[in-house]
């Protein structure tokens, strides 16, 4: 149990169709008006694991990933970080989130801070490192993702690919137990995705623990230990990349793989 870095047990999360969060006193009983983004999803991640979640858009992958970081509070089920249950009452979620790195699809860098400021902020204000040490670690993290030359520029002054690598550095600098990545490349120009993928490949080589939502199939094939096909709020099929690239067991996964591989080779 303790060798799991993170574990999700029977997680549920429902939305109103307008995107409105479900309030405690409100009941969405009408099937028409609810989106079941996460339905009874369980998942274990061990140290050094790289797992990749893929599936059609709108199926709830991102919601599930946000539940893992407790950025969305699950309706039901449990999330464990190590042996700490994040869904039980009275847990210090800030401390827990400080141990989890999160990389967003739309990057969300702090716009009023330079690249190094973005990385440094949590080191100084959350981990309470002294100024010089925080600066050094921030610069190291930026060097690791190869954006040292942008360290003193603002997010609006760098390219999307550079910005996303700064986003990865921001998640990385705290030495998190795990990094959750929510479609890190899908908001970027096709020619910028390569540099972000290279960064992720380097991280994978260094043994980082990662849970990635992505459709970068060649990358998945290369680094993922396990691929998870996710559709309509459920895990449909899991297995090594070889399974999905050769003969998935479920029809749904087979269809999806066919479509995605055709698109990539076109």
């Amino acid at each position: 149990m303790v060798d799991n870095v993170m574990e999700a047990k029977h997680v549920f999360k429902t939305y109103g169709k307008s995107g409105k969060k479900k309030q405690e006193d409100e009941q969405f009983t009408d099937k028409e008006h609810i989106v079941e983004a996460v339905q009874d999803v369980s998942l274990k991640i061990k140290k050094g694991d790289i797992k990749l979640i893929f599936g059609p858009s709108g199926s709830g992958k991102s919601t599930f990933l946000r539940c893992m970081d407790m950025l969305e509070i699950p309706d039901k089920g449990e999330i464990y970080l190590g042996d700490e249950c994040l869904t039980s009452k009275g847990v210090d979620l800030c401390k827990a989130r400080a141990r989890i790195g999160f990389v967003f699809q739309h990057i969300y860098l702090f716009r009023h801070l330079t690249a190094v400021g973005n990385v440094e902020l949590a080191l100084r204000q959350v981990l309470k490192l002294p100024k010089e040490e925080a600066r050094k670690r921030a610069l190291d993290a930026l060097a690791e993702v190869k954006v040292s030359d942008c360290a003193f520029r603002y997010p609006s002054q760098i390219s999307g690919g550079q910005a996303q690598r700064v986003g990865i550095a921001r998640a990385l600098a705290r030495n998190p137990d795990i990094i959750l990545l929510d479609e890190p490349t899908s908001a970027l120009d096709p020619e910028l995705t390569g540099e972000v993928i290279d960064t992720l490949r380097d991280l994978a080589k260094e043994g980082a623990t990662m849970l990635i939502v992505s459709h970068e199939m060649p990358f998945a094939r290369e680094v993922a230990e396990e691929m998870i096909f996710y559709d309509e709020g459920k895990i449909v099929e899991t297995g090594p990349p070889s399974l999905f690239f050769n003969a998935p067991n479920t029809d749904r996964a087979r269809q999806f793989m066919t479509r995605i591989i055709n698109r990539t080779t076109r």
Partner: protein
Amino acid sequence: MDVWAHFIILMEGVPLTLSISIISFLIGIAVGLPLAFVRVYEKKVSFLVDVYEKIFRGIPEIVLLIIFFFGLRPLLPFPFGDPFFVACFVLGLRSGANQSQIYRGAIRGVGDEQMIAGMSVGFSKWRAIWHIMVPQVFSYSTAGLGSEYALLIKDSAYVYVLGLAEVMTRSLQWAKNGAGDYVTPFVIGAALYIALTFPIAFYLDRWGNRRKRKIGL
């Protein structure tokens, strides 16, 4: 007395007009900024902020000044016996109600994603607000703050009802002593108000635009 001597006396009211408006502006920031965040992020008590805003925006400043000064002085001699304190207090609270609305728009403009990103690196809600939202909210709202400041310079004229010797009060005195010329004192007073208002509003606006461009808002 000649016009020049009167003008000098009028000018001596400028520091008071400026200090009332600047102090009220700062009180407005101290009140308005937290209220805006409470209104957006603490849904349970946001109606209280709404009530506060309605009261202070709905009652004319001059009425507020009279109620607070003449109404509270018998009950709370200190510090409500001091007209300067009451002037800054009332105009500051009124400005807080206005500024709260300015900041609320700015919070929407900055966007919830910045909060989510802040929480994802380990900040609590209020610390994310302080470290991530507040700096951006200020950059976003400079244009609104410029006009709010101009409004305060103008509203500081109402404090003549408390007998404070600022620009308005001195124009009034000049007009009373000025041998039937009621226009000249107020025209000169008006020119002074313009001179006090525009440089700061202009500068705030320019600074804000530069800053906004820099951070891509």
